[in-house]
């Protein structure tokens, strides 16, 4: 009997088209350039109130020293190894919004409104000494916030081979 060969198709046609509405429902990420930030805005003072209600038990008073890690850089460090925080380790401010909205509070993830997340972001940036108390955080201002840790990171230079990196 002869041997034949089927060709591999350029498209299989499985799956269905994604509508813009269903993409929008899932597309909650925020990029450093601000793409993905929703409408709304926040200020530190309001963020502080929310933080004290919903976050302080796990992250400590003023965001320092809670059982689940500090979020705010301790200005009077003890001699133990300095904790990595938003103030000294996060390269982009947009990540604060993105992460808090998707994952916090740990025991009630996804429960915060966009407005609440803006307030909390403003609070955490202010508590870390990055923005002023009065600064309004929104889709325009957040990507412009310059983070202290912006230039801390370098791309991976390991590449296999004999050299140890």
């Amino acid at each position: 009997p002869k041997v034949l060969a089927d060709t591999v198709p350029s498209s299989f046609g499985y799956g269905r088209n994604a509508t813009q509405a269903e993409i929008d429902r899932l597309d909650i990420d925020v990029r450093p350039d601000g793409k993905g930030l929703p409408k709304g805005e926040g200020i530190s003072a309001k963020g502080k109130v929310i933080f004290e209600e919903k976050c302080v038990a796990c992250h400590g008073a003023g965001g320092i020293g809670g059982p689940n890690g500090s979020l705010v850089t301790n200005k009077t460090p003890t001699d133990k190894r300095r904790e990595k925080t938003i103030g000294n380790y996060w390269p982009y401010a947009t990540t604060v919004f993105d992460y808090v909205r998707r994952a916090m509070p740990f025991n009630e993830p996804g429960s915060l409104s966009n407005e609440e997340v803006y307030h909390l972001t403003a609070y955490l940036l202010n508590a870390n000494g990055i923005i002023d108390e009065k600064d309004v955080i929104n889709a325009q201002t957040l990507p412009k916030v310059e983070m202290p840790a912006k230039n801390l990171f370098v791309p991976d230079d390991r590449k296999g081979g004999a050299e140890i990196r």
Partner: protein
Amino acid sequence: AAVAIVQTAKGQTIQKAVPENAIYEDPTKKLGTLAGEIGTRSPFVKSVKKPSDISSRSPLQDFYGIITPSDLHFERHHAGVPVINPNKHELVIHGLVEKPLVFTLADLKRFPSVSRIAFIECSGNFRGGKENLTPQEICGLTSQSEWTGVKLSTLFREVGVKPNASWFLAEGGDAAVMTRSIPVKKGWEDSIIAYAQNGEPIRPEQGYPFRLFNPGWEGNTSVKWLRRLELSDTPYYTREETSKYTEPIKDGKFRIFSFDIDARSIITFPSFPQQVEKGWIEIRGLAWSGRGKVVKVEVSTDAGKNWQIAQLNDPILDKAHVQFRHLWQWKGEETEILSRVTDETGYTQPTLKQLFEARGNDGGYHMNPITAWQIKKDGKVLFKPETFK
């Protein structure tokens, strides 16, 4: 545990209940349990993972061969294991693509499939500092399965990834809605959307109903419970690739997007808290590299002065745990035994000291150094903690 009394479909078979202490007396004189729908594990087998709040470590010292039993695969998650109804869970691919598409689990299974045996290791997989550590505690955040799924490149073709797409965001459907940015290049190379593990659907702890699997890369990039891929021209700098999964190197700098798992090996037998006897000992362990195949494992039984080539057990697969074995005659002397692997790029597993010389000694992710076991005169085996900072 009392022997279960089982009857056949036809009600023929009669197994009398026996008093507890008679159970194991003579199995040749007692009809056994008839064939069932699901196999069991002997009650005498007590191997478990070691959980913490955030992870659970595989008992490497209990393993045989290269397959990790699926229910002993290590766990690492950032908001627990979600319960996902596969009928309500879909994968959306959008962003810089010609045709955004949604795939159900059934859709994914229709595409050409691929299987490969490969490890997943968490890049934070190193503990040291004290003598009474088991392999599970030192580096139990690595496991290996046969993963089956659809190549991401197949889906890339299906949605038509645009030429300017250089990264994609992978997002999980767990309570952390876990995200990582991955270079599109990896997706064209060898990423898989995996829906099966060791012959069965992926376990909930490993991402049921499907996960991203990036062979050879730090485990966190292989996003579980995958729900969305967004193609982009920039990485997203998510929390997991900035605040976490970055590590200190010299001059106050930190490495970001450090994906490859450096080659590593560990002797799993003998190891703490085992005790050895004089005579022939088969030293056994696992070796792997995120950069390709293992080409050589060397073992030293004299604290690193001399090294001998260990045997590698087939199959030796790309980006996969390989078993090594080395016969050693122990005459009762106090010594240290160590292993080091070399991969196909020519990288040889360094000492902790060499790693510190190269990176500074702040520790962090991607610490895959040589680890040594001390053999005491009485046969006790202890981990050798190395001092730093």
